[in-house]
């Protein structure tokens, strides 16, 4: 690679276990090195500053998704033509099938039902006094809610979380860690194919609507499977990670807990801050269609580029004191959901799920504490916890 002798190069390995365990020092180093940095460890460039990542996400003409948004060609190939891996105008037709179901005005009708489910779940774990907030609190709600909305049969739902986890992992390096996930990934591909069938999806469901769109001639038949895949992957481990991260802050910071309990109107702002400071999706890849000037550094045409949402959200050039959780910051311009063309279509649903769960937790407990060290789940693309052991004092019993 001799594209430019002056191109800033870094030897940081963004997928090394110690970096994945705590990537923020590496991100800071990259941000301070240059607006765009070429890595020696993988054949990619990385953008880490807020304004550059945001501009890159908005500029689909220069940073195309149509060659896939994963690190490797092998794993880009199967996603081509899907909603994540297309540009306008093809992308917009596919997205409209999802976004008409995920539009907040439609979701508003689901809010009461989701709040009720969340409250029942919280009541159940709080009654036990101690529980794991990842496996028993953060995981069940998104899986149940999304599976019902897609219209999936009950049998097989246990595949959703590990399957989504493995699918997102396939966006990262095709190394021995991905090889270890390959059986789950392959199994999930089979599962997704088996439910890509209008006869197994509940009538009136989001899944059924995808096939209705095919029947109506809105989208080509071959896009139905990939669109269903988007539903089956996007809103599982990502949402779980965000809810767990928020819950962890509540458990580790009694002052934050007290502030939110006294003023639940801050729950929404707190969720945005949790997303900012622990962005579940670390970043996706793009490919440059031309030489692109990124704040003075030229990224050559044909480069694969990581747009680091998680680094952008910690950029001190944009957020004052970025490593501090400030419940009143309300950073609605964060890039945890991406931005622009491929901005998360389901972000409204994620907000309802998280706000409902945290709202119930705050109502139903007076105190919340870590009962052990939280366990990090090693993953190349989605940053989340494996376990979060908590003890709680139920409201009115403290």
């Amino acid at each position: 690679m001799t594209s430019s002798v002056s191109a800033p190069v870094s030897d940081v390995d963004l997928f090394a276990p110690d970096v994945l365990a705590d990537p923020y020092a590496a991100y800071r180093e990259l941000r301070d090195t240059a607006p765009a940095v070429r890595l020696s460890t993988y054949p990619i460039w990385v953008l880490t500053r807020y304004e550059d990542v945001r501009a890159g996400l908005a500029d689909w003409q220069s940073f195309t998704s149509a060659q896939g948004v994963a690190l490797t060609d092998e794993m880009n190939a199967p996603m081509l033509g899907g909603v994540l891996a297309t540009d306008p105008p093809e992308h917009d037709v596919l997205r409209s099938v999802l976004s008409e179901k995920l539009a907040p005005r439609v979701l508003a009708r689901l809010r009461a039902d989701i709040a009720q489910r969340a409250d029942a779940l919280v009541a159940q774990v709080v009654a036990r006094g101690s529980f794991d907030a990842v496996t028993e609190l953060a995981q069940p709600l998104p899986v149940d809610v999304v599976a019902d909305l897609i219209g999936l049969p009950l049998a097989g739902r246990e595949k959703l979380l590990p399957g989504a986890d493995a699918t997102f992992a396939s966006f990262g390096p095709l190394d021995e860690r991905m090889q270890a996930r390959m059986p789950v990934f392959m199994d999930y591909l089979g599962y997704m194919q088996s439910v890509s069938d209008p006869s197994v999806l509940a009538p009136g469901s989001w899944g059924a609507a995808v096939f209705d769109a095919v029947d109506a001639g809105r989208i080509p038949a071959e896009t139905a499977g990939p669109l269903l895949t988007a539903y089956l992957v996007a809103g599982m481990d990502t949402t779980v990670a965000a809810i767990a991260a928020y819950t962890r802050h509540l458990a580790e910071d009694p002052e934050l807990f007290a502030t939110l309990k006294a003023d639940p109107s801050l729950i929404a702002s707190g969720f945005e801050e949790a997303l900012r400071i622990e962005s579940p999706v670390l970043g996706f890849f793009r490919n440059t269609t031309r030489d692109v000037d990124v704040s003075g550094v030229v990224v050559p045409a044909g480069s694969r580029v990581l747009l680091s949402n998680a680094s952008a959200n910690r950029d001190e050039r944009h957020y004052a004191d970025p490593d501090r959780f400030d419940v009143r910051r309300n950073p609605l311009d964060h890039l945890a959901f991406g931005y622009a063309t491929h901005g998360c279509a389901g972000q409204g649903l994620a907000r309802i799920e998280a706000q409902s769960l945290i709202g119930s937790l705050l109502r139903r407990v007076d105190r919340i504490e870590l009962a052990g060290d939280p366990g990090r789940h090693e993953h190349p693309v989605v940053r989340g916890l494996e376990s979060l052991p908590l003890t709680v004092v139920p409201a009115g019993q403290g």
Partner: protein
Amino acid sequence: MQVHADRDRCEGHGLCADVAPEVYELDDDAVVVLRHDQVPAELERKAEAGARVCPVAALRVLP
């Protein structure tokens, strides 16, 4: 100052109206509507803030 709202791109996330209800509202179909053709000077900062948080980049402040 003027704001351009791309109503085709708007998905009704409503963050603009949360941040700057004096500038943006959602119509009955939850598509963004501008309250002013010309943003009053005292609302310019709010208009910018509201445009900035649009998750799908449907709002653009015109110089």
